[in-house]
């Protein structure tokens, strides 16, 4: 557990949020939820219980029917599509299941993907890729393609990609989904080390009970599940 004093500043806040998919088959109702800066939160629940829906709401991928979601003090739930996209590029780093690296881009370009697709360009993005790659022992592999990397190396590239813009929030959507216990622990350790170093908030969707112990808080999403038509 981390020092509660460093966790006091709310990073993501849900207030009276209600969300329903268009086909009315599933929805979430979240009366009040806060995720704090520097906090490491595990979102748990069985398959189909709304874990991914919750993080998509928190990152502006989905918009609620009602209520408000603020991220870093900005009301992301009422922002337009373009604003939400820009917000995501600059403020949220994603780590996906099986890492979803782009196989036709080199390690360097994969790490800098956020810059390629619209993040505000900086003079230091190249240096940032070098720095991140060096921090995970991949500097010699920067010009290789993902297919030339081992599983562990690909996993580290995915984490570097999420960290490239130094986002205050890291969202990991079941990154340990298909991994054995040792590899799952490794992913959580690397992510935790990085968020600790940057005081970022880590939100990780998982149904892997073995990794939950490494988090500051666990949120069971089933408590927010709304009955169809309710």
């Amino acid at each position, binding site marked *: 557990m981390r020092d509660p004093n460093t966790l006091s500043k709310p990073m993501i806040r849900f207030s009276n949020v209600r969300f329903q998919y268009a086909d009315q088959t599933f929805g979430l109702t979240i009366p009040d939820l806060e995720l704090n800066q520097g906090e490491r939160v595990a979102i748990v629940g069985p398959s189909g219980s709304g874990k991914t829906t919750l993080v998509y709401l928190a990152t502006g991928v989905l918009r609620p029917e009602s209520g408000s979601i603020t991220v870093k003090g900005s009301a992301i739930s009422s922002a337009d599509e373009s604003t939400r*996209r820009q*917000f*995501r590029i600059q403020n*949220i780093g994603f780590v996906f299941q099986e890492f979803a690296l782009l196989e036709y881009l080199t390690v360097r370009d994969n790490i800098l993907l956020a810059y390629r697709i*619209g993040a505000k360009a900086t003079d230091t993005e190249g240096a940032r890729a070098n720095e991140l790659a060096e921090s995970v022992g991949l500097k010699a592999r920067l010009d290789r393609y993902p297919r030339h990397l081992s599983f562990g190396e690909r996993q580290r590239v995915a984490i570097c990609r999420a960290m490239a813009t130094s986002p205050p929030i890291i969202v990991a959507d079941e990154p340990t989904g298909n991994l054995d216990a040792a590899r799952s622990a490794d992913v959580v350790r690397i992510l935790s080390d990085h968020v600790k170093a940057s005081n970022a908030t880590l939100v990780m969707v998982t149904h892997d009970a073995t990794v939950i112990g490494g988090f500051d808080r666990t949120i069971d999403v089933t408590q927010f599940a709304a009955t169809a038509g309710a």
Partner: protein
Amino acid sequence: MNNIFYMACRHVRFFKVRTLILILGITCTITLPTASHLIVTKYGDSLRSRTASTPYILGARGNRFGLMLKALYFGRSQVDAITLADVNELDRSEWGHAIPLHLGHTTKGHPIVGVPDDYAEFRDFTVRNGARTPQLGGAILGSAVADAMRVGVGDRLRPDIHSLYDIGDKKPILLRVEGVLSPTQSADDHAVFVSLKTAWIMDGVMHGHEGDHDHGSPSNPPAQYQEITSENAGMFHMHASPADIRVSAAIVVPTSDKGATILEARYDSSSRLQLQNSRIVVEEIMGLVVQVKSFFDAYYILVLITTLMFIGLIVALSGQLRKREIETMHLIGASRRFTMGLQAAELLIIVAISTLLSAGLTIVCLSVSKHFLGVV
């Protein structure tokens, strides 16, 4: 925009096989109709431009298309010969001027054309260097022949042996290059011009040997000259009358419209000779070519539709395969415009490469067609 093209280039480069298949498909789809259209257009222009300066052709009755292709473009079609007497008869009339042409010999595949002295003037030849009109035993080269054979004034040319069974026969006489013509952008660029007498010497109708006109005995024939020089030119002689001397055809320039009408009527009733209006015959040839082209156009449209369907299918399948990639980019923050632009840029790069390749291939096709079709 730079990032879109950067990523598109990376994608195109990484998936080489897919890119190559698409490029080849699009290149063929562009090249086939473009090249065939340009070749037919160029072929038509080339055929028509020659007819403007060559109004009528006199030749043996038979295939008029073959006669026209042989007389105008020095093609290899087989047509019966006419006699020099036939040509002289027309030339002596007040209705037209006839310029005989002798074809049949080649040197390294290039046609050797026997022409009278006034052919150069008729075609308004200018020379790159050397003489304009061939002397006995001499040759004037079309510019393309000189370039292709890399020969110039003072070099010697050996005519091709026509029959493999002639290997025991005497060697063909050497031709002395006397001049090279300036380019004319016509069939003349691809021909070697010799005098009519030289052509008849090559036929064996005229010959020269030691001992003046004494032919010796069958067991002791005189030595034949292998090259015509100023020293031995006077020793060449003919044993045939103009009625027996053959030419392939004759260009006929009527003196007037009335002359043209009278000559047309005269040869229309001839059972042995035909006088053809080159413009009319060439338009008939082009009519056939255009008919064939229409068939190919329909075929190309089918190929185009099929190729577009294949490309559409590949793009659609590629879109399915890239669903995860596109979704990943959208989640990170890419706009739909970005991801669609990325796919469009990839297609644009492939189409641009295909278009460039197609332009190159079309130029090659046009160049090759010159040799196959014998026109420029």
